[in-house]
């Protein structure tokens, strides 16, 4: 599903050059659930952003579901993100003026699905997350766990092949974190969606099939859980 070889990334800020990814090789099969761990600043988010086509790499090759990701224009990139990728962020990133249902339906809006239809589908997903009653609430009226479940529903609605989650439980307490992980493992099992989860918590990482450790921009360890 994901196949990267020798990925490099350097950030340039003014005269400073920061070589963050120093040749990453990684293969992720369809349906795998993988966690990524590493010290702060080791380049986990950078890797995930490149995989999410939110940022571009300097060197190396990236194949997403067989498609070579290189020199894409922004329209094409948007289309690929919409079709293949779902994102879950630490800070939820819900759109503040849209209610829960509208937030979940957003990816379908960009596919030009009619409002009625996409809202109906969004309601199904909210129901699965146990949030049906909250469908008409704005994000600022919801708890962190609720927000993250809405974000997950949003990541799922367009039936992506891969879900990229950057510290999805980072802003949640341990009980809620486990609930969120329950949902994610469920989805991974039942829908065979590939998952990459960046986390700092060992007990979260333990719930995935494999854990990749990144140290200073390189993969130093791959552990089966």
């Amino acid at each position, binding site marked *: 599903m994901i196949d990267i070889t020798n990925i490099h990334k350097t950030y340039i800020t003014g005269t400073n050059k920061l070589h963050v990814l120093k040749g990453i090789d990684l293969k992720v099969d369809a349906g795998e659930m993988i966690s990524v761990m590493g010290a702060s600043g080791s380049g986990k988010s950078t890797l995930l952003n490149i995989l999410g086509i939110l940022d571009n790499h300097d060197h190396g090759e990236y194949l997403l579901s067989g498609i070579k990701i290189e020199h894409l224009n922004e329209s094409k990139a948007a289309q690929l*993100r919409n*079709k293949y990728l779902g994102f879950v962020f630490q800070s939820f*990133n819900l759109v*503040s003026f849209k209610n829960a249902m509208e937030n979940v339906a957003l990816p379908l809006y960009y596919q030009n699905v009619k*409002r009625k239809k996409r809202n109906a589908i969004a309601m199904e997903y909210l129901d699965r997350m146990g949030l049906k009653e909250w469908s008409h609430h704005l994000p600022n009226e919801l708890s962190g766990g609720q927000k993250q479940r809405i974000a997950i529903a949003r990541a799922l609605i*367009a039936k992506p092949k891969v879900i990229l989650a950057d510290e999805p439980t980072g802003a949640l307490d341990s009980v809620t974190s486990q609930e969120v992980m329950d949902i994610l493992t469920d989805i991974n099992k039942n829908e065979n969606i590939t998952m990459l989860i960046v986390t700092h918590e060992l007990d979260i990482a333990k719930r995935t099939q494999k854990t990749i450790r990144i140290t200073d921009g390189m993969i130093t360890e791959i552990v089966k859980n």
Partner: protein
Amino acid sequence: MFDLDRWQEIYHVLKKNKLRTFLTAFGVFWGIFMLVIMMGSGDGLKNGVSQNFGDMATNSVFIWAQQTSVPFKGFTRGRRFDYENADVRALGDAIPEIKFLAPRTNVGGFNGSNNVIRGLKSGAFQIFGDYPVLDSIDPVNLLQGRFINELDVKEKRKIVVIGLRVKELLFEKNENPINQYIQVNGVYFKVVGLFKSKRTGEAASNDNQRIHMPFTTCQKTFNMGDAIGFFNITSKDGIPVAVVEEKAIKVLKKRHSVAPTDDAAIGHFNLEVEYNKMQGLFFGIRVLVWIVGIGTLFAGVIGVSNIMLVVVKERTKEIGIQRALGAAPRIIISQIITESVVLTTFSGYFGLTLGVGLLEFINYLLEKTGAGSDMFLHPGINFNVAITALAILVVAGVVAGLIPARKAVSVKPIDALRYE
């Protein structure tokens, strides 16, 4: 297609900072408002001044006789002379460019002593001997009866057509003047028509104090021989009346033994030249109004563009989220441009409406109080201008949104997402 999500977003953005939205909108509102008011006033000025011409053929020249200033053919300078009936024929024969030729005789009285009497009432009015053709050069509004006709001229009938003010001064309020008699310089004339000037203001009140009678009647009754007071001549369509003017003066000089070099002997006034000067002035005013108006509007549009830039900056993260979820650049761009167009068009529409409303109100006041003058009348803008202004607003909105929209999609999605 109506897209609720899009309008929801626009509403959210505009509502978020109401004061800022209002101030921005006000810039555009003011621009278009000023444009409308200035255009309307310009037109009001034009209408007012144009009304001084009434429906008069503007390709007119007036020619009258003065004193010679150069001795010629045995005559000394300072000689007075009159045009005569034979000149009419001679002018017509010599100048094919003439369309209408109306000779006129006049018996003074206006501003002088009372010269018209009816019973116990009397007044001082201007009295003209005219041909029916006058009605084609300088028409009036006939309120009652008829104008002078050919038969009147041929039979030298003792009839008059009187102006409204004449009727008011000589007749009772509800009296019908038609077929009544009035005494002009001691001679009785039958009133056959009553008219009102097509002009406004002072020009109109002058017109309304006139009495017209057949040309021939006037000459005969008041012992003028075949002397003519002046000629009013128009040129054929497409020919400048100056051509006719020049030729007519030449013919008249020759016929009355006036030296070709004598510029003082023959008085003339070319209405067309004056009219064109005025048209040029109005054109200038119009151009100026557009320049100033568009300038003001432009300032408003810059304001919109500026605010859109701020909005885009504020919403960087939100736009980043949308792009991460698969919003193509064109969706983001069209969203921002729509916002900008909505802002300019709405505020511009209010400016337009309020401007037109104010002009209508002024118009209403002018009409109600009768204050419409020979300087200002019927201010207003025409429909095409309004449509043009709206079109300009929409285009301006697009232009104002373009730079901010491009800016919104020029950053990498990740940078947008990370923006704090």
